[in-house]
């Protein structure tokens, strides 16, 4: 089994199934905070998938997209945390 086959038939499916499992929590999530955390984890797993995909296709340019995804994940979490706290202040 070559490295290419191993990455394509073992590692990528593991990451894809992990994303699906996280998506269950994203749909189920009792509170909105759970959903935000699940979204963050889905994006982080997406970075891993892009890294594996860049190895399979032998194209290091894909890693630039991983950088941008990491930025967006952090920005999204911070923005959600900020506005959820603010929304609560107005309710009282």
């Amino acid at each position, binding site marked *: 089994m070559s490295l290419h086959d191993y990455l394509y038939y073992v590692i990528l499916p593991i990451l894809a199934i992990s994303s699906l499992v996280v998506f269950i929590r994203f749909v189920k999530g009792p509170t909105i*905070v*759970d959903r935000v955390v699940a979204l963050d984890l889905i994006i982080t797993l997406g*970075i891993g998938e892009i*890294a594996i995909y860049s190895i399979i296709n032998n194209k*290091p340019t894909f890693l630039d997209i991983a950088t941008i995804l990491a930025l967006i994940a952090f920005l999204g979490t911070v923005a959600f945390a900020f506005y*959820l*706290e603010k929304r609560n202040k107005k309710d*009282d």
Partner: protein
Amino acid sequence: MTDIFIFILATLGAIFAMLAAIGILRMPDTYLRISVTTKAATLGIGLILGAAALYFGDFAVSTRVQAIIIFIVLTAPVGAHLIGRTSYFTGNKMWKNSVIDELEGKYDKKKHQLLSEDVKKQHQKEEQKKEADGRKKAEEDKW
């Protein structure tokens, strides 16, 4: 030789990422879920990116990978702290078997402030101060 290292790094990374996914589904409580996702996912993705850097063996690519890893390692705890703080302030309850809640009673819901001592004690102190001030004023008025 490098192929074996890539095998090991990618496998370990995938296992940690899978553990993070199982953890977020199975953990009983928002705070435990945040804790699991932050640590396991950061380690797993770091290992997978390390495998990519090893595969390309190029200076430009490994610099990029280093930048991504450092960025994730720096921002994951910050984001987890912010979202956990928000979760606590919005009144998310802890798991029933949790041992200790060190912030219990220290968050003033009316003023939205986090104090270093109990909110009730703080209110009592303020009232005592007011009473003392009132007494002083009354005595001064007598004179």
